[in-house]
């Protein structure tokens, strides 16, 4: 079996992945100077160059767009078909994730989602999404 690609964590993203792994939390960066919110993590604020803090968020949001993948890249064959979505987080910014569901028909633009954490046997953790009314 071909393994799924795991994030190659960069130093500027260590705080993000640590919050996922240790606290089961999705987060964004907030600028201490101008208050801008950004994702993915950078060293500094892209709006003003100010210092940033990793700020946990609710993990809730709305599906901005999605696609149901029938012809997956290497490592994802056993999951197909599966939905990958871009989600507008309630706190601002957008993030990608799978919408983990058995009900692909209910994955729609505008649908409300929550964050769930997918953990592998190797201790890796990935933030994913689930439909908000699916009992999570």
């Amino acid at each position: 079996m071909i393994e799924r690609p795991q994030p190659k964590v960069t130093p500027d993203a260590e705080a993000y992945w640590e919050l996922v792994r240790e606290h089961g939390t999705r987060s964004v960066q907030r600028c201490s100077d101008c208050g801008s919110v950004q994702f993915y993590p950078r060293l500094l604020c892209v709006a003003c160059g100010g210092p940033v803090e990793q700020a946990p968020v609710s993990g809730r949001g709305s599906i901005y767009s999605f696609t149901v993948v029938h012809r997956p890249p290497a490592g994802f064959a056993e999951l197909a078909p599966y939905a990958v979505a871009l989600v507008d987080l309630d706190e601002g910014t957008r993030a990608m994730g799978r919408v983990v569901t058995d009900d692909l028909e209910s994955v729609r633009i505008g649908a409300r989602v929550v964050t769930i954490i997918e953990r592998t046997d190797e201790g890796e953790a990935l933030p994913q999404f689930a439909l908000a009314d699916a009992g999570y």
Partner: protein
Amino acid sequence: MTSPGLRDRTAIVGVAESDIGKTPGHTVFSLQQQAMTAALRDAGLRPADVDGFMTSGYPYTERQAVSAAEYLGLRPRYVDDTNIGGSGFIAAMERAAAAIECGLCETVLITYGSTQYSSKTRALGGRPAEFGYQFEVPYGLPLPLGGYALAAQRYMHLYGAGSADLAEVAVAARQWAQLNPKAVRTKDLTVDDVLASPMISTPLRGLDCCLVTDGGGAVVMTSAERARDLRADPVLISGTGYAQSHESIGNAAEITDTAARESGRLAYTRAGLGPSDIDIAQIYDSFTITVLLSLEDLGLCGKGEAAAFVADGRIRPGGDFPLNTSGGGLSYCHPGMFGIFLIIEAVRQLRGETGNRQAGSPRVALCHGTGGQLSTASTAILRREET
């Protein structure tokens, strides 16, 4: 910022493609040599006349322009191998024009070669989950196709277009390809055939996607003044524009509003022309959705109106708006970075050299390339010199 400084100052004087389709026995370099030799012959020039060289986008080697120039026997004093994806060769013309106008070089050769079919290097995914992609690749989005699928889904949601509207782009391309003796895919194709092709990543089906072929191409540019003394009728570069909005699709502000809006605005302003002046267009059709988004963002129709624009055979052979008259990346060939073939076809149409598929006597052609996941956009407006 929108100075017409480069307007009509340079010209394309030679174009050619190499063998295309399946090219076993070729390398990325030999394809470029074949294309270069034919393009220089078209221009009435020799390799020794080339003092500027631009290429990009093939695997296997660092210093791409340096290694390709060595193989081709060139010793250029100006090189460039900037890789911005499929919009690359149209953007290369902009830099070539600037280099020629500034006197850095006199004759620029732009080449491309790819053996992606024969070497089986094309894969959906295949990108390391590093840097910005550590937040996308682990989710299993096929790349680059998935980025276009996300855009298509949202486009259909916002504007009510359907899969049959996307399919029309593929059907029109096939009908043009049937008139192009060099086209790879020429079997009859209907909208129903496209809708019956296997789903890849909703809403994009197999026949919404460009081909995977081998092939190469070459374009020769020089000053407009010098071009008038060369073999072929010069095709002037009237205006160009480049813009980019993101690298990976998760970082697009609004995925249905592409960088084509800005690259097109720059090109029109610099050319002193507008959408209504365009007689023929060659627009990168990496996927059917790419064409609909580009038509709108280039102002050739209003936002959300591309489905109506392409309906009723308007972009098919004989229609009011000749588009992708080679058959495009969907049916002619697609070695990976199709932009150079957009230029080649536009030049041939402006010169009236395309035989059965000649779309009247166009005076002004628009070429538009899209790279990455709707990430980069380059527009060029080319013009036949009035005689």
